[in-house]
């Protein structure tokens, strides 16, 4: 689901810190440093990187299409190769039989089995194309807030890791505790109360 979809899901973040000056140049550097790379025809199973919102399959961050009004708008792309279990099994059985004939034994060691599995996965990963998943984000730099357009746990974890790696800035997910602690404007005394809160009872 993207920014322009009719229905969206949003995870809210607070950006902890600021980019060094010049901001736009450092933003571009961070994006280019971790731009999505193609893994088709390679043994890699998965890759995550930044891409352009309006050109997700041919990202080029030399322009300024990732700056829209007061917002930075770009996308996280996660490419993954999905190998059906039955195909892995078929090729593992074929390779195992081949190996058994070569060694002249009726069994394989654990190490040999592992080598066969790794070999099968590498061969299949070379042949299968990756499936791209694109998740948009809007970064309101002045407000230090970021909206990530998915609630998927895996995608959110990739975002947090890649954001830190790219911009050296931590993303703080805004859930009940962090939202109360960071953005609600509680006094120190109220924050102490927050820490000690326990569930209320409504049913007795």
């Amino acid at each position, binding site marked *: 689901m993207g*920014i*322009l979809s*009719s*229905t*969206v*899901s*949003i*995870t*809210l973040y607070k950006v902890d810190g600021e980019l060094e000056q010049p901001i736009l140049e450092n933003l571009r550097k961070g994006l280019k440093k971790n731009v999505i790379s193609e893994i088709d025809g390679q043994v890699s199973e998965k890759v995550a990187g930044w891409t352009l*919102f*309006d050109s997700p399959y041919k990202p080029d961050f030399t322009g300024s299409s990732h700056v*829209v*009004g007061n*917002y930075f*708008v770009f996308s996280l792309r996660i490419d993954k190769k999905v190998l059906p279990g039955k195909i892995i099994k078929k090729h593992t059985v074929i390779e195992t039989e081949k190996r058994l004939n070569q060694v002249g034994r009726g069994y394989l060691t654990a190490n040999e089995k592992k080598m066969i599995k790794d070999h099968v996965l590498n061969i299949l990963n070379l042949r299968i194309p990756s499936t791209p998943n694109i998740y948009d984000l*809007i970064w309101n730099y002045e407000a230090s807030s970021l*909206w990530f357009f998915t*609630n998927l746990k895996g995608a959110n974890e990739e975002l947090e890791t890649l954001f830190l790696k790219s911009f050296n800035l931590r993303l*703080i*997910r*805004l*859930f*009940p*505790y*962090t*939202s*109360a*602690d*960071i*953005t*609600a*404007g*509680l006094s120190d005394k*109220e924050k102490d*109360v*927050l*820490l000690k*809160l326990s*569930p*209320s*009872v*409504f*049913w007795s």
Partner: protein
Amino acid sequence: MLDVAVSYNRYKFIGYEFLTWLWFVVESEQNLIKNYLPHSASIQVGNRIKLENHRNQNLETITIKGDEAGLEEGILALRKGALVTELNILYETQNLVWQFTIRGESLNIGNLKTQIAGPLEKKENIDEQILEKADQYDGVIKLVDHLYKNFIMLRVSTDWEEKTVVKIKNWIFS
């Protein structure tokens, strides 16, 4: 600050209490809810409520959905000790209506449907489309943020146990 994973799990009950409180104020305290909304705006409970009961070690989940669904089952679940974990909201300001779901444990916004003043494809360029959508999302995010801030200020005050919990109990058992 506390470790993220620890604070997420330890305090997710606050999110559930927020949604339970929100249902209560929407249903019973319309004068109060008006204070939290922009002028001439209104909110109603939408077409889905999910409740969970963690009492007695066993998790019990109750989901009520459908535009015409009665909410009595939900009240009954509250009486047994359940709390609201997901709440669908209808938010209306002047001529626009938004519908979305707030998830208690994460405060994530899900299934947000927005209205656009005109067909997107007729907008001059993609920037204009993005800015219009961003403006719509901003309105909803600010609403949830504002409601949550008001709730949390109340939750850390003595009024919570002394007044609000009593009122919620009266609502549940009325």
